[in-house]
């Protein structure tokens, strides 16, 4: 396969993935948008007014970047985990396995598909958030950079989950018992300054804290974490997950007998 062939194979996977989530948009695009709107209404409008300011910002402005990041994380992850596991379940993953498409192209194709949904939903939620809160973007490169890296990282994690999953239950265990607690404890709704020294330090092992804070910094200019450190953490995690995912595909773990 020359580079042109590889590019065609890559774009075929990406197009197929985008087509998949667009075809079932009432399941893939509408629910996350409704969920986030409810967060805005409840935490922003109804409760937010009583909370007052957080880190010097109106609560709705503080919480909005975290909510956008939450939608990017969950949608990037769930797109890849459900699509890849669905392909395993229906065995149409074999269409790719019998082809000369290199594993790294397969991996990138699925990941870019997941990122497309994550970023697409993130963009929809950002547009809706403008109705609830006023933003003056603090740093576009940081905002774009961290959202891309976060989406990449969780798309990779979704693929690893799908490789190991043996049933549809297995693809909901990680989002329910790992991802959701990490998101809720990752500084989406509060500043870690509120936690005190001990729990604040414990929070530092949560990778989502770095992503949410970097994104918040990009949007509104405040953070609990050093931004360079945030990018470094997300970069290291993404690289680690990329090599794990690629290794699983190369070995054919749970894909080839």
């Amino acid at each position, binding site marked *: *396969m*020359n580079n*042109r*062939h*590889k590019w*065609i*194979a890559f*774009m*075929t*996977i990406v197009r*197929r993935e985008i*087509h998949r989530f667009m*075809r079932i948009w009432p399941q893939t695009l509408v629910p996350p948008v409704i969920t986030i709107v409810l967060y805005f209404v409840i935490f922003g409008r109804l409760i937010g007014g009583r909370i007052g300011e957080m880190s010097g910002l109106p609560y709705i402005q503080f919480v909005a970047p975290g909510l956008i990041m939450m939608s990017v994380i969950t949608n990037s992850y769930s797109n890849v985990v459900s699509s890849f596991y*669905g*392909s395993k379940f*229906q*065995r*149409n993953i*074999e*269409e*790719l*396995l*019998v*082809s*000369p*498409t*290199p594993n790294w192209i397969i991996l990138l194709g699925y990941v870019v598909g997941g990122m497309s949904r994550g970023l697409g939903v993130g963009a929809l939620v950002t547009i809706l958030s403008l109705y609830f809160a006023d933003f003056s973007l603090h740093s576009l490169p940081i905002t774009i950079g961290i959202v891309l890296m976060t989406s990449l990282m969780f798309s990779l994690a979704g693929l690893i989950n799908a490789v190991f999953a043996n049933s549809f239950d297995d693809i909901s265990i990680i989002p329910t018992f790992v991802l959701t607690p990490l998101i809720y404890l990752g500084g989406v709704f509060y500043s870690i300054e509120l936690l005190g020294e001990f729990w604040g330090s414990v929070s530092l092992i949560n990778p989502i804290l770095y992503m949410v804070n970097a994104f918040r910094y990009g949007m509104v200019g405040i953070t609990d974490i050093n931004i360079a450190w945030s990018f470094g953490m997300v970069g290291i995690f993404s690289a680690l997950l990329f090599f794990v995912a690629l290794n699983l595909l190369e070995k*054919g773990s749970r894909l*080839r*007998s």
Partner: protein
Amino acid sequence: MNQSTKFALQISQLTKVYEDGFVALKGVDLDVAEGDFFALLGPNGAGKSTTIGIICSLVRKSEGSVTVFGQDIDTDFSAAKQYVGVVPQEFNFNQFEKPIDILINQAGYFGISAKVAAERAEKYLLQLGLWDKAHVPSRTLSGGMKRRLMIARALMHAPKLLVLDEPTAGVDIELRRSMWEFLQEINKQGTTIILTTHYLEEAESLCRNVAIIDHGQIVQNTSIRELISQLNKETFILDTREKLSGCPQIEGYPLKQVDTCTLEVEVEKSQSINELFAALTSQGLHVVSMRNKTNRLEELFFDLVAKNLQEKGNE
């Protein structure tokens, strides 16, 4: 096969031991010449699908080597995969996608541009009678249509070797015949075909060479003609014009009465069927039609498998 024969597939000492310890293949050696229409036969669990799985890299081999048109599937996997098209036993396409999308995507995975893929998809969907279903969700297709869709998908990258794992399973006779014609045409155009099937008349009608695999070993590898020539006797069903008053007795020909106008007889290779007809005519019985009781290849197949089983028992 002489020394100048070019091989589409060469398998040497192929062994597969699954994680649970089950030995599916025990040192299989197999050569398939370029342009051949080759049958791989065997009972359930014999190792046919494992062999096919290894050829198309869905199953990891434990030992041995496989080359496709001279390209090793381990060291030259990209080139080797370009040569192979596979039609698996079970439906393995996304049932929510449309046939046209399934075909165009499959071509894309082989690096074929969307324009060329669209032309090929139309060609094969038309040839296989699926064009009017091109834009419906594939889950709405009948079983036969799904099988044809998988054949079309396997051909999208113009493979030189087409591997079909029981492609006509569950397909009605009329459709099966039309699929045979299609496959024969593909083979005439130069595509080497390897076929596994439970319908042995399918192998007899389509294939020139055959290997029989049992318990992970090749027990016979020869031409279909040579295999059939090994038959020592055949069982025929004879329909008589006259009603039978009892079972006629003819020396050397063990006859059985099936019903009032039907007889069954075993004829050995050394015997003449004309002699039997003459003897029946002399008894006032005229044969109006005759057919094989079972497929000839089927009888031989069962003999070989039973023999292999017996040898295993003796060991």
